[in-house]
Every structure is written in structure tokens, then in C-alpha cells.
């Protein structure tokens, strides 16, 4: 029983590290990233993971070793009567301070690229996104390239975007807070009623990916699910034209009914 407790505490770093090492093999890790900027975020995540992992292993092992070594029942030496060490305090203040400051500065470029308005691509908005309990509404500018004109194309929960191109989304909310989260593109931005915000990214691969709401928006928060499809420019334009034709047809039908 003597060393039982120290060994129990040794399990923390062992199982902790094992958990993180196994996760990628169990399909439980950072999801596939298809965006141009996403690898920077993943790199920063892994950078912090390695750094904090090393500190985690070191401190937990020191804790284990002190528990093992200085157990009152086996440690025959007298207590080291000391009130601390000024030089040690200086060392372990300056080292972490420098490291933390470095981490902060190291992150800034990626953050600026992802969020600062001055870094947004200089293109007209590709689509306007409106969050609403509990669905995503998309409004494309249509042929004239201008939003809020009669030829706008409306879609619900089904977003199509061109691949290998910068896209600029204007996001807003009609009712409560939502958050536009594309896990596979490493994009997240809250939708705030009363604010129109810009979100931009570029997908490097075609495919269909989830749009997830990441800010609590009521009882149906979990099912506020959309889908984004990245496709080559030609397919994208064909799809838009098809949607436009469909919309015109329904529109005329409704007008006929009204007559």
C-alpha cells in the first residue's frame, strides 16, 4: 500500500498521453480539413499540444516522484527546512512568461488572417447567410451580382460554393444568437442580430460538409444543421441557374394562382 498512491498519480500522465495518442486511430480527432487556411490553425493546435504535453508530462512526473521519494514512511532523511528560493522563483517566472508571450505573438498572424476585416478578399459577397430558429437561409445575389434585388436566389440549409476560390459570406441573424461553424473549414463566427459580419475562406477540395450551429439558440439548437457543397465553378453556376429557373417557375405558378 505504501507506494500505491504515488503509482495512482503516475497513471495520470500515462493514461492522459495514451488517450491523445490513440484518438487519431479511433477516428476521434481533428476532422478532415479542406480549407486553405485551416492547416495553420491545426498546426497551432498541435504546437500548443506538444508544448503543453511536455509541461504536463514533466510536472506530473515530478509530482509522482516527490510522492514516491518523500513518503513519510520510507523517507528517513530529515525534512528540508526551507522557505523557498528566490533564484528558482525568478527562473520559473521568466521562463513560462517568455513562453506564454511567444505563444501569444506566434498566434497573431493566423488570427489576423482569419478575422481582421482588412484581410478580407476584395470581392462582392458570394452569399448572404441568415440564421433563424432553427435553419440556415442563404441568399445569392443572382445574375446582377447585387444582393437584395428581385433576381436573388433563395435556399434553405443547402449551400453550394465554388471550390478553389475565395468566397465572402455576409452573415446575420434574424432572431437570436447563432454561430456559423464549418468544422472541416476551421471557420466559426457568431451570428449577432443587428450586425452584418463578413466571413471568408477558400476550399481546396470538392465535397459535402456539415454546417453546425455552435451557439445555443433554443431547444432546436442541435438540429440547426445545414450542408455546404464545394464544386467546380461550372457545376456551381449550373446549379445556381437551375435554382433560379426553379424559383422563377414556382414564382410564376404562385402568381398564376393568385390571378
Amino acid at each position, binding site marked *: 500500500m505504501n507506494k500505491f498512491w504515488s503509482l495512482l498519480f503516475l497513471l495520470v500522465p500515462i493514461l492522459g498521453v495514451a488517450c491523445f495518442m490513440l484518438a487519431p486511430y479511433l477516428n476521434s480527432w481533428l476532422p478532415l480539413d479542406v480549407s486553405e487556411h485551416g492547416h495553420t490553425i491545426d498546426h497551432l493546435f498541435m504546437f500548443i499540444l506538444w508544448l503543453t504535453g511536455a509541461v504536463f508530462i514533466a510536472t506530473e512526473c515530478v509530482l509522482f516522484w516527490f510522492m514516491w521519494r518523500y513518503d513519510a514512511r520510507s523517507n528517513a532523511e530529515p525534512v528540508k527546512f526551507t522557505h523557498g528560493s528566490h533564484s528558482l522563483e525568478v527562473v520559473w517566472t521568466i521562463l513560462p512568461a517568455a513562453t506564454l508571450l511567444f505563444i501569444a505573438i506566434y*498566434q497573431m498572424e493566423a488570427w489576423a488572417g482569419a478575422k481582421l476585416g482588412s484581410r478580407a478578399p476584395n470581392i462582392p459577397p458570394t452569399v448572404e447567410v441568415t440564421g433563424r430558429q432553427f435553419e440556415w437561409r442563404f441568399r445569392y445575389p443572382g445574375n446582377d451580382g447585387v444582393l437584395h434585388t428581385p433576381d436573388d436566389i433563395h435556399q434553405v440549409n443547402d449551400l453550394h460554393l465554388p471550390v478553389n476560390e475565395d468566397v465572402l459570406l455576409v452573415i446575420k441573424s434574424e432572431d437570436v444568437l447563432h454561430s456559423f461553424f464549418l468544422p472541416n473549414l476551421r471557420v466559426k463566427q457568431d451570428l449577432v442580430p443587428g450586425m452584418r459580419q463578413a466571413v471568408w475562406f477558400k476550399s481546396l477540395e470538392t465535397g459535402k460538409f456539415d454546417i453546425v450551429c455552435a451557439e445555443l439558440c433554443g431547444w432546436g439548437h442541435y438540429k440547426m444543421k445545414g450542408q455546404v457543397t464545394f464544386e467546380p465553378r461550372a457545376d456551381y453556376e449550373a446549379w445556381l441557374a437551375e435554382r433560379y429557373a426553379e424559383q422563377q417557375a414556382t414564382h410564376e405558378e404562385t402568381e398564376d394562382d393568385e390571378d
Partner: protein
Amino acid sequence: MSTTTADAGAHGDAAHHEHTQSFISKYVFSFDHKVIGLQFLFSTLIWFLVGGLLALGIRWQLAWPWTDMPVIGKLAFASEGGQISPEFYTVLFTMHATVMIFFVIIPILAGAFGNYLIPLMIGADDMAFPTLNMLSYWFMWPAFVCMGISFFVPGGAAAGGWTSYPPLSVIVEAAPGSHGGQTFWLLGVTFVGISSMLGSVNYMTTIIQMRAPGMTMFRLPLTIWAMFITAILQAFALPVLTAAGFMQLMDRMLGTGFFLPEGLIANNSLAATGGGHPLLWQHLFWFYSHPAVYIMILPAMGMVSDMISCFARKPVFGYKPMVYSISGIAGLGFIVWGHHMFVSGMNPGLGMTFMVSTMMIALPSAIKVFNWLGTLWGGKIQFTTAMLFSLSFVSMFIIGGLSGIFMAATPVDIFIHDTYYIVAHFHYVLFAGTAMAVFGGIYFWFPKMFGRMMNEFWGKIHFFFTFIFLNGTFFPMHILGATGFPRRYADPYHYASFHQLQPLNEFITICAIGMVATQVVFAVNFFYSIFFGRRAGRNPWNANGLEWTAPSPPGHGNFDIQPIVYRGPYEYGSPEVDIDYYPQTQPPPASSDAKASE
């Protein structure tokens, strides 16, 4: 105080011998800081159970969504056929957090331990303002009532998250809980705020004014330093939350529009007011609630420092750096609130400055961890239950502290914000950190509170299973977070990309059930020991603090003689004396007078 009481106290049954007060004034509306401390302790432990059961509801849904809960389901959710409805799921996580934060962690640290320990550890006979102290407990009751009845008003309890972000929490059409439930929530939190404010004024005054002769500020135990700084944090941060709470109440009831922009359409009806901004609430809320995070951990850090020094039989390593880091955390704590809002729509340039301040607040925490390790180095560690809980606090706080760096880094936060990564992080700080320190503190000071020892064997059983299950519950949440698994989802498996995570969630839920079940061991040990535990003397742990020179339990007025303090509280293993501890009140040997007075 009369010598009769003191003698009776020495025999450990002061309570039965004092007949001067009626039952009501002695145990109900008591002015005695010890009775008030125990009132806080018992109330918060009951709410701890409630909060734990709410958590199990959340866990059940995440492991086995839309399945009938055995037994409980039929009773609680009869109308839903035994299932948790998505509406009720939002109530569950809102009220779990509310109960745990406002009714458990804050009042158990400041209310229970703060009240009980401050006068005893500084050598005072009571608090500076006993009436305020009594009111600080009794203002918790309107809060308990508000939160309790909110479950039964139409629409049910608040369901906008414990952060109560508007417009969801203001517009009644937006959520069922935003009918009456949210109003009661705001009133309840306001009452908790009044209670905390009365307490913090009292703690500051008491610590500044009522220290025993010789108890200089730098001879205070770190528990008291932490309580002192916590009280300052509360006094300066709370008014902001209270004001914001009233603004939200007015938005809800009087038609003001502090937090509502123009032209909101919720559930197809147009909101009548506008001109405000939802982000205003977030700034005001986190201006309180981020310092509140430190209100929820600093006292735990102080208590752990005391316990580690006592059971390592060695002085705290770097006492003054510990004090400075507590103050550093408190100071920086006021300028980091924006890290909750990196993706909220706040100016991204502001996000950068908040990233720097948030990174820097990790520094004092790191210094504290190094000093705890330094305290263990070269000691003679006694593995009592209290010590095991304290060591686990250090071990777990390392995890919770390090995982915070991920969220502090703004680009990484873009991905992990509002995922289970943050859920893992704050549970490692608040449950694996604070709650473990609270358990340790209960095992450590129980002999002082009740004059009897808790059973060590069952205490270690309690520790072992809590430690295993808490890691089983919270560690895998990091992995969930890394996949982007969102928090506050009634059914994450609505997304095909999260299907593979269900087995892991089942594992977490089983561990969570085990963790709650383990607390039965604690409850039985606690109540059994109050009545039948081995009698404790005044100083069962051979500790140095002033509280250990008082009778167990201390009578009214605490000390039988006025304590005079000669040294700091951590002189364990001092070469000046033959025994391995050196109580603060023990006069120094005549020859070493000069040395001790430095």
C-alpha cells in the same frame, strides 16, 4: 467568553452545555460565524447533490438519446413517454451550471469555508459584522426559492444557458424557459449576489481589522489571503452583474431594449423594442463572470496550500510568491473577460489584446504549481485523505490550466470554441480542481467543525473512486472537443460526422454515474462521523494554524485565551523546536527571541 464555555469546549461538547440562547437564535438565525459556516456547508452539499443529478440527466441524453430513463423517466417525464425532451435538455444544462456555480462552488468556498475559517485562522472571536453575516446566509434562501419554483412555472426553468445570452433569454417567443423561468433565474442570481456582497464586505473588514496581536498580513495562512483577495474580487465585480441582471429584467418586463437590436423577428413575431446590442450583455456578464472563475478557484488554492504544507511537514515553498500570484491572478482576472468572446462578433483586434492578457494569467497559476511541487520536495509526506485530495487538486489543476492555453490562443479557439474541449477544461478546473479541494478541506477541518474525525479508510475509498471516475468522465471530453463535438446539443448524433463518438459518450456517462454513486460513501462517512466518529483533540493533524489551538468544536467566542502570534503558519520541521511543528501561538525559546522577531 466565560471559562465555563471554554472548559466545555475543551471536552468537545460546547454545544450541549450552553443554554443561554434559544434554539432559534443559536442554530437558525445565528450570529455565530461557525453556525453560519455550517449552514452554508449543509445547504451547498444538498445543492451539490441536485446539481450532480441534473448532470446525470445531461449525460444520459448524450449517451442514449431519446431513450427512456429507467424508473426516473416515468416519474419525471411522463408526458414525454419517459424521455428527456429537447426543451428539458436545455433546462438541464442551464440549471446544472447555475446550481453548481451559484449554489455550490461560490457559497461553499466563501460562505462555508470562508465563514468558518476566517475568524478562527486570524484569531478573532467572530466576524466584524455578525448581523450582515447572518443576512448573507439568509439571502441565499430567496435565491433557493426562486430557482426551485422556476421549474414549476409555465415554460419551465431558465433554458438560455447559465450565461443567459440575449435575445434568447429576453424574448419570450424564443424559448420556453424565457417565459417566467428566466425572470426567476435573474431574481435568484441577484439574491445570490446580495449574499456574496454582504459576505465579501464582512470578510475584508474582518481580515483587515480583527487579526490577533502579532498576526501581520504576511503571517496569514494562504487560505486567508485567498479569501481576502476573493472578497475584493467579489466586491468589485459583482455590482456589474447585478446591474446587468436588472437591465435584462427591465428588457423582459418593462420593454426597455438594452440588449435588443432593431427588427428582431422571433417565432414570426416582431419584437417591440430595439436600439440595444446583444454583445453589451456578454461584456457585462463576463466582466463579472470571468473574475468569478477565480472566485471559484482562489480559495481552493489557498486551502490546498495549507493542507500540502501540513502533510508534507514542511513550510510552504515561496510564501510571498504565492501571495503575489494570488494577487496577480486577481488583477489580471479583470482584464481577460474578452476571451469568452473571441468569435462573438467583438472587434477581432480587441481579441488580440485579450489573448495576450489571457496568456499572461497562466503565469501566476504556473508559479503556484511550481511552488506546490517545491513544498513537497524534501518533505515527509503523510498520505491522509485530505492530502490525497490536495495532491489530486495539483495534478488535476495542471490539466485544467494547460488546456486553457488552447482556448486562449485565438486561432485555435476558432475551432474549439463551444465544443467539448471547453467543457473538459472548465470541469478540470472546477470539479477536478475546486471540488477536490473542497473534499480535502472537509476531511481536514471536519475535526474542528464537529469535534470528531471522519473515517480515513472510507475517506480513501471515496477518494480513489472519485479520482478514477472523474478522470474517466472528463478526460475523454478533450478528445470529443478535438473532433469539434459541440456543447449544449440534445442530440449530436443528428450529424453523421459525430456518430462514431457515441461509444465514448456511453463510457463517459457510465463513469459519471459511478462518480455520483461514489459520493454516497462520502455522505455516509460524513453523517456517521458527526455522531459516531472518533473524538478529535484540539489539534489532530499537529498543525500550526490558530484554529487548531481552539477547542474542537470551538465554543461561542472561539478561543479560551487570546491568541498571540509569534510566526507564520507554516513552520513545520523547524530546527528551533524538537517536534516537527511549531504552532503560531507558541512563544519562541528565550534564546532565539532575536531570530523569531525578524
